[in-house]
């Protein structure tokens, strides 16, 4: 077998159509569903700023008799503040 025949022989064998698998569209759809979720940096920053605002506002709420929560009863608001923060983060991630 000379070199030219050798090349033709290999070309013919290797370029033969292979059996088909899933369609191109099905393959692509499956792949796109496996991509990691988008990072959405702008919305995350928005969520973070909102969280800070809510936290600060909660601490500055008047607690009666003209005093601020911040100065008198900060510990009592700690739990609702944390829950509120968690809820905001959950909503931001869930709805975007």
């Amino acid at each position, binding site marked *: 077998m000379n070199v030219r025949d050798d090349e033709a022989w290999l070309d013919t064998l*290797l370029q033969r159509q292979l059996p088909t*698998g899933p369609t191109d569209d099905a393959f692509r759809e499956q*792949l*796109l569903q496996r991509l990691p979720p988008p990072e959405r940096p702008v919305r995350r920053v928005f969520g973070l700023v909102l969280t800070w605002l809510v936290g600060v506002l909660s601490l500055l709420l008047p607690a009666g008799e003209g005093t601020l929560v911040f100065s008198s009863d900060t510990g009592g608001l700690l739990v609702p503040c944390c829950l509120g923060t968690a809820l905001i983060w959950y909503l931001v991630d869930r709805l975007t």
Partner: protein
Amino acid sequence: MASLPEAPTDAELITRVLMRDDRRAFGELVARHQSAVRGLLRRLTGGDLAQADDLAQETFLRAYRGLRGYRGGAKFSSWLYRIACNVFFSRDRGSRDVPPEPPLLEAGNAELALPDLVLERHDLEKALALLKPRERAALVLTYANELTHEEAAVVLDCPVGTLKTHVARAKEKLRRQLEEVP
């Protein structure tokens, strides 16, 4: 007469993915290159469709995650082939204890093609499966995917001389294997 808008180049699609995380653009890149990548992996896996598509999915996922590492020096398809070969080599290393099993002939496929062509293809895949992974990759890249020796050497990250040696050895082994078939 208004001309149709030109299809964006690979570079433009890549920029869209990087700048805006545009998944439609990435889907377009997949649509353009999936046939070649899946074909390459089918030949590397000896015709195992399920494994080849599994590796092809892994290839594109790695490409998506590492797209910032694509410098644009080589063709995008070559960069994908490189990832595909690395995915295949690492899978192959993981299953080295298991001897390569040539795929069984399926009755459904046999009906679609002439019997001698199916047998020939089966013999070829069996013979390819017996080559060393790098020899198989060198042969498939240069013949089936029609890369030049230089391009294939870049894909396999080896000198051109080494690549040519892989191809020559693979051809010789393949010829001997196929000549042994009665």
